[in-house]
């Protein structure tokens, strides 16, 4: 029965009950009671439906609020992670820059003594064959005294730059001290390293900087030593230093190798 049919039936019954000649009919009272009971039940049903609808509406709204809240929280969380990741990346870059600064000489950009020490210590643990060369600019103090430290610094920069370009990929060079440089030739015998250093010294002697309309250039002395068996780098270094001292003593502008055992 459709809603319309039901309405029509109820209207028909209401009309019958409203007709005065039906009063007193044996079915009249029963029909009236049934009619009223049905109306009451119908009203109750409609109220229940309305309440149920309202509950559903509330539940839907609550779900929407939760959903909106959840989406907002998620968005916030994503933003937080994104920004936080950004700061972490920043910190990492800062650390890298600090590491770079702590292992390189700020004037020449060459690896500093700290980094060179790290390389050499690593080699101590291996059976790797290598040759060390210590190079020192001749009469550097006189240049500083005569022309000033900025001129000395410019010379250091020019020498470093040429040195870096002249060496092979596998060779390492660093600033060991004031005007002293250390070269590390791995897998290289003393003779071969000696040739490289000699060529390098000639190139460096041609490096010049301009100062007050004059060209200034320098010579370098070098001392070389090859690692003996598994000796520690401090021993190899000591022998290179001794060779350098002798090169200085013998008149500078030359390279000397520590005698083979």
């Amino acid at each position: 029965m459709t809603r319309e049919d039901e309405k029509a039936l109820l209207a028909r019954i209401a009309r019958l009950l409203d007709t005065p000649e039906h009063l007193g009919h044996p079915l009249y009272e029963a029909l009236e009671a049934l009619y009223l009971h049905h109306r009451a039940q119908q009203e109750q049903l409609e109220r229940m439906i309305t309440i149920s609808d309202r509950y559903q509406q509330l539940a839907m709204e609550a779900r929407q609020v939760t959903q909106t809240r959840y989406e907002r929280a998620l968005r916030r969380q994503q933003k937080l992670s994104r920004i936080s990741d950004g700061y972490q990346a920043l910190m990492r870059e800062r650390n890298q820059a600090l590491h770079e600064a702590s292992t390189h000489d700020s004037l020449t950009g060459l690896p500093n003594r700290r980094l060179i020490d790290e390389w050499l210590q690593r080699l101590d643990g291996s059976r790797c064959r290598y040759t060390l060369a210590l190079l020192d600019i001749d009469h550097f103090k006189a240049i500083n005294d005569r022309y000033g430290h900025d001129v000395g610094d410019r010379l250091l920069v020019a020498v470093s730059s040429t040195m870096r370009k002249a060496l092979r990929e596998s060779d390492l060079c660093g600033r060991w001290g004031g005007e002293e440089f250390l070269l590390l030739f791995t897998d290289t015998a003393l003779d071969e390293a000696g040739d490289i250093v000699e060529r390098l010294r000639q190139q460096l002697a041609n490096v010049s900087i301009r100062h007050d309309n004059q060209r200034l250039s320098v010579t370098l002395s070098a001392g070389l030593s090859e690692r003996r068996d598994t000796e520690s780098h401090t021993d190899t270094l000591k022998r290179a230093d001794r060779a350098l001292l002798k090169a200085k003593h013998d008149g500078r502008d030359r390279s000397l190798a520590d005698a083979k055992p």
Partner: protein
Amino acid sequence: MGSKITMISDLDIAGGQSTPAIQSHWGSGRLAMQGDSYPENSYELFDQVIGWVRHFLDEESRPLHLELDLVYLNTSSVKAMMDIFDLLEEAHLQGRQVSVEWRYDPRNERIAELADEFREDCSYPFAITPAAAPA
């Protein structure tokens, strides 16, 4: 509504290696923070700041201006700053005048990029400006 305003005491926190320096000025409606922020207990630190901002926005109708020279922020500090910016946004949507100026060292553009990420959901004036002198 009474016109009585309850002021809370201004913040004046000296910065440390891991703590930003923080100053608030109730009278002029300004809050300033400088430096790195990765304190051991950032909630304790930022609860004061958030409390001050909330209180100012509740009690006053005058504009509020933030001056930030922040550099590094850890995650909980990032969250605290987001909370503060949200408070400002809420106030702004209710018609309040609020503004932020985030200054950064031009040698560190990354800070500006991160400030820009913070700014994303803010509809009030939020300037990111290179500072003349590093903080």
